[in-house]
């Protein structure tokens, strides 16, 4: 089991407030193993259970049934709560839920402070994290007074400063401008490729999913598709039936094929399509 960062066994989750009449399980019998160093992307329509799954992955929620292991530690083991949070850091869907301090740099320092990191080292990490997300000039600002995208950057910096082995990002680019998105995605890629971090990345942007090692698609609390981005996105019809989309160039290639134009069916990027035509 050593090679797995996260392992979920027959996990079910039901929100208690969902009511007795509701037959709905937010998470229904899920088995997943996320390998160490893997870059996993999770797709799925609104309410399919992605955020719930993410919160189960770092022990914020405990399974109603089944077990979740983070680096071999069961999330139900109360003694391991802090170790688990240190191993798997999470960037929430709404950054407002994550802001704790009244000044940006203190907010970013909050995690490492709780980890008991020496203050000189914290200083270094905070500066570096803010530089990566390009928020250095805002370090003395109040986080709640930032624009939407700026808050999102600070939330990401907060996790970077904790240097967890596994980073779970719940729609980290939803409020970012196009260049900001590219920057965050390239940061995620760097963390994965160079620093060997395990990445679990939830997104509604199909072009971000193209970067993953593996893609999972959720539907009503279950995993309904699994594969490499190429395997997933070559099934244009099925992906669309699940309420999702494919990158624009993939769609164009698919449409052209339907018209009898001879190009490969597994186009994922602009460069690939230029070459194919």
């Amino acid at each position, binding site marked *: 089991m050593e090679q797995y960062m996260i392992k979920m066994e027959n996990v079910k989750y039901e*929100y208690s*407030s*969902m009511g007795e009449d509701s037959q709905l399980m937010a998470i229904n019998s899920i088995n997943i193993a996320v390998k160490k160093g893997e870059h996993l992307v999770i797709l*799925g*329509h*609104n*309410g*399919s259970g992605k*955020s719930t799954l993410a919160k189960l992955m770092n022990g914020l929620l405990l399974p109603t049934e089944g077990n979740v292991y983070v680096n071999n530690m069961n999330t139900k083991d109360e003694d391991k709560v802090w170790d688990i949070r240190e191993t798997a850091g999470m960037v929430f*869907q*709404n950054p*407002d839920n994550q802001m704790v301090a009244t000044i940006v740099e203190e907010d970013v320092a909050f995690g490492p402070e709780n980890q008991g990191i020496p203050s000189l080292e914290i200083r270094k990490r905070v500066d570096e994290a803010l530089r990566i997300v390009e928020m250095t000039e805002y370090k*003395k*600002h*109040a986080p709640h*007074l*930032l*624009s*939407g*995208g*700026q808050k*999102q*950057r600070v939330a990401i910096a907060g996790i970077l400063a904790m240097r967890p082995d596994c980073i779970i990002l719940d*729609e980290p680019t*939803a*409020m*970012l*401008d*196009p*260049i*900001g*998105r590219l920057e965050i995605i390239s940061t995620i890629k760097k963390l994965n490729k160079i620093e060997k971090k395990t990445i679990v990345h939830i997104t*509604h942007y*199909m*072009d971000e999913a193209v970067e993953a090692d593996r893609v999972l698609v959720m539907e009503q609390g279950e995993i309904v598709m699994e594969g490499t981005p190429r395997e997933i996105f070559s099934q244009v019809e099925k992906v*669309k039936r699940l*309420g*999702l*989309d494919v*990158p*624009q*160039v993939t*769609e*164009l290639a698919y*449409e*052209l094929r339907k*018209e*009898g*134009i*001879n190009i490969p069916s597994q186009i994922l990027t*602009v*460069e690939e*399509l*230029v070459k194919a*035509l």
Partner: protein
Amino acid sequence: MIIKIENLNYIYNPNTPFEKKALDNVNLNIDKGDFIGLIGHTGSGKSTLVQHLNGLIKPTTGKIIVDGMDITSEDANLKEVRQKVGLVFQYPEHQLFEETIYKDIAFGPKNLELKEGEVRERVKKAMELVGLNFDDLKDRSPFELSGGQKRRVAIAGVLAMKPKVLVLDEPTAGLDPRGRDEILGRIQKLYEEEGITIILVSHSMEDIARLVNRIVVMHKGKIAGEGPTKEIFKQAEELEKIGLGIPQITSFMRKYKLEGNKVRDDILTVKEAKEELINYLRSRGNA
């Protein structure tokens, strides 16, 4: 002209260490029936600007006229302003406050002193417009929804007011692709059928490209450019310099042309690209 903004300046927290000039001498005219895309890097001032349009924020200096009414004057009737201009916030959580979804969406129409039956009709219609099932969800708490579901409730609340000017601040952030297409499709239909004016703030160049007829570009609190959609998206390099971009499909067509293929490079949607390429490839004779 339905909106006229003159010499608008806005400073957050003046005379404190947090002082921030968010809008810098903004001048903008929006015609009745326009579908405007407002784009700009994070922190460029988009949300600050649109919050002025329904009187939520008062200018530090400058003037805003909406539908003939000076909304920046001392005695402006804010209730009337909010009826004219409906604003969907960037973070829908900030807009939800009632204990059930029904009450939340009904809040605005109730304030208009409509009859209960009419309120109910509007809530039902608005939920339908955003793809929320009325019977299943009306009695649930808006706080126990997923992120994308909350956003739909917030949009429904504004649609139920039937505003003349609809301002949407990142309405599709967090929506899944089908939800995004559904809601934008319905907003477009609303636009075409009711002749309302729409201002769409978005970081999705793809959404902007296929919906709006004019684009306003903001950069560091100033208007950095303005023009018809195709004109603005021709300026890829300039847009990238200020944190923006062009749709993936437009970027593909430009690269393909650079490789020596004689195709148009002002394509904005997959559909347009398909037609252009089929004509080109067939004329080249390899299809």
